[in-house]
């Protein structure tokens, strides 16, 4: 037996072995923008991953890479995962949109799921949660709770998802408190605790007594706690350790059911590119406990709003609504369509400042 034959035989055996393993185990990869321990956005995605493991046991193998920058580096990580035999890859940040599409082209047999984006392909599906539904409830509570009528908002990047949140919170705060004013700070990061803390402190110094955040760490909660009489909301995760004050409620992402369903679809061979956008109704968006710091009637109003949204009786973007420049957007009773919401790049009337373009 020559060495070449021996090698070929070994390679064949290896190939058989790996394909055998690949057949009885579905490999699922996750790409995270922050650390698993951020206590917010990435933490909840990882809870989803753990739920997949718990649900399927030995039938799946999950891997994840955390702290992956949005951009070329993400492409490298996804390629690596695909080469290592992943069958399904979840890419969990908006900035992974183009990298996901690029890598998906090279690996037509691997399924990709991109969170919060809008570009799909044969083997790329997108999914997102209707956070803005939760923001409507936050806005209602915030509008009631503010004494100074100044609500601070720590925004991350000027993308539709963040802008929708600002608009939804503003519309509902304004509805219960016509004098309310939003101060918006763009942090240009998803995760930088020191910067988020600075932003929160600045907003508090400038009179805000309710802070909403669209960044991933708990630093703003700590800053609010240090300041004393400032209210916050848990972002993406419950952040319950800061309740009952300053955290008076939260928006919780629950990715587990979706991740399990999509993994199942890959196992069954029924996976198809989809565009899932679920909210409070199907349970992808949860509202964390509203603490006793909030007056009972405000709590009841918030919960009623939650029920109405869950049942589909109320849409957070219901006319009459104008755009910031005063031009009409939605007529009385008209609701926003998903296409407009997905690409939202304008403030509604009443919000001050400009969206960075």
């Amino acid at each position, binding site marked *: 037996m020559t060495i070449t034959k021996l090698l070929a035989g070994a390679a064949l055996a290896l190939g058989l072995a790996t394909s055998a393993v690949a057949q009885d185990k579905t490999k699922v990869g996750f790409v995270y923008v922050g650390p698993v321990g951020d206590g917010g956005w990435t933490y909840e995605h990882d809870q989803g991953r753990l739920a997949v493991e718990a649900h399927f046991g030995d039938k799946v193998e999950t891997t994840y890479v955390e702290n992956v920058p949005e951009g070329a580096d993400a492409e490298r990580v996804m390629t690596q995962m695909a080469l290592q035999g992943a069958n399904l890859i979840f890419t969990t940040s908006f900035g992974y949109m183009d990298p996901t599409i690029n890598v998906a082209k090279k690996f037509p047999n691997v399924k990709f799921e991109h969170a919060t984006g809008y570009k799909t392909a044969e083997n790329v599906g997108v999914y997102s949660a209707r956070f803005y539904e939760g923001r409507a409830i936050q806005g209602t509570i915030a509008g009631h709770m503010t004494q100074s009528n100044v609500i*601070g908002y720590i925004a991350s990047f000027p993308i539709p998802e963040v802008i929708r949140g600002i608009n939804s919170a503003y519309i509902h705060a304004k509805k219960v408190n016509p004098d309310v004013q939003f101060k*918006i700070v763009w942090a240009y990061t998803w995760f930088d605790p020191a910067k988020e803390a600075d932003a929160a402190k600045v907003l508090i110094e400038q009179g805000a007594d309710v802070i909403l955040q669209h960044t991933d760490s708990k*630093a703003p909660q700590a800053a609010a706690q240090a300041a004393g009489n400032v209210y916050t909301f848990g972002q993406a995760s419950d952040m319950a350790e800061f309740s009952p004050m300053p955290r008076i409620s939260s928006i919780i992402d629950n990715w587990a059911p979706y991740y399990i369903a999509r993994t199942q679809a890959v196992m069954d061979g029924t996976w198809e590119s989809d565009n899932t956008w679920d909210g409070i109704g199907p349970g992808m968006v949860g509202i964390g406990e509203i603490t006793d710091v909030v007056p009972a009637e405000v709590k009841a109003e918030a919960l009623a709003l939650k029920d109405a949204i869950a049942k589909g009786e109320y849409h957070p973007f219901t006319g009459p609504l104008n755009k910031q420049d005063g031009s009409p957007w939605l007529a009385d009773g008209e609701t926003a369509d998903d296409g407009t919401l997905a690409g939202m790049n304008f403030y509604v009337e009443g919000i001050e400042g400009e969206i960075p373009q």
Partner: protein
Amino acid sequence: MDLSAISPALLLASLMVAATPILIAGIGELVVERAGVLNLGVEGMMITGAICGFAITIETGSPAVGFVAAAVGGALLSLLFAILTQFALANQVASGLALTLFGLGLSSLLGQEYVGLKPAQTPDLHIPLLSDLPFLGTVLFSHDVMVYFGLALVAAVWAVLKYTRVGLVLRAVGENHDAAHALGYKVVRIRVLAIMFGGACAGLGGAYISLIRVPQWTEGMTAGAGWIALALVVFASWKPWRVLLGAYLFGGVTVLQLNLQAAGLAIPVEYLSMSPYLITILVLVIMSADRSRAPGSLGRVFHASG
């Protein structure tokens, strides 16, 4: 736009807080580089200091003990770098990068149990009379002790480097290690001590973030502050007071741009966001137009046989 919403006193006060982590880490790295060693592991040592300080503060309830632990943690990690580069003669750039990666991983491992806890508060000093002064009292005399420690450290490093024999020897080692060796100075020993000093400072800087500025433990929470500190040293032309200037500029513009955003200033946010980096680099580059240069032996491997 409502600029009256910005309080100059609070702005200047938060400037000092925002600048302190990079100031302390930067001044430590300055000493390391003046000794001729380039340690790119500042970020890793900062985050390790952040978790060491945080964990020990939780366990003992004393931020003071926590800060000491942070310095020890940072110094221990830097010892690893010292062994690699001074005894195993490994490449300093690669070892420093490895140290950052290692520090990030180690800190998340150490931090598993500490997510979501709250550390004991570090009290702000209240100096009778001085703290009660209008404006100046808020700006200068009502901070936590670490802010003043950072300032004192800059002064001490400057004085030691400029006026003492120890400083002279350290600079000699950094400028020309062969000549220093020929004169009988223990190049490796001096460098190891400098590296450990740098590690301790980075650890303190990191702990300042986890114990005072944020205060909580989150993985990866230094989020690049170590790299800023590294860059500061270079742009400050290896001069202590310029590191102070750079750190305050950076901290100041960072806080100012958030303030301007919140006040609704009509400057595009992108420009405001990049302004801390831009202004700091610009000022320090203009200042370094004099004949200052890097230490002669910076980043070069030393072996007594050479």
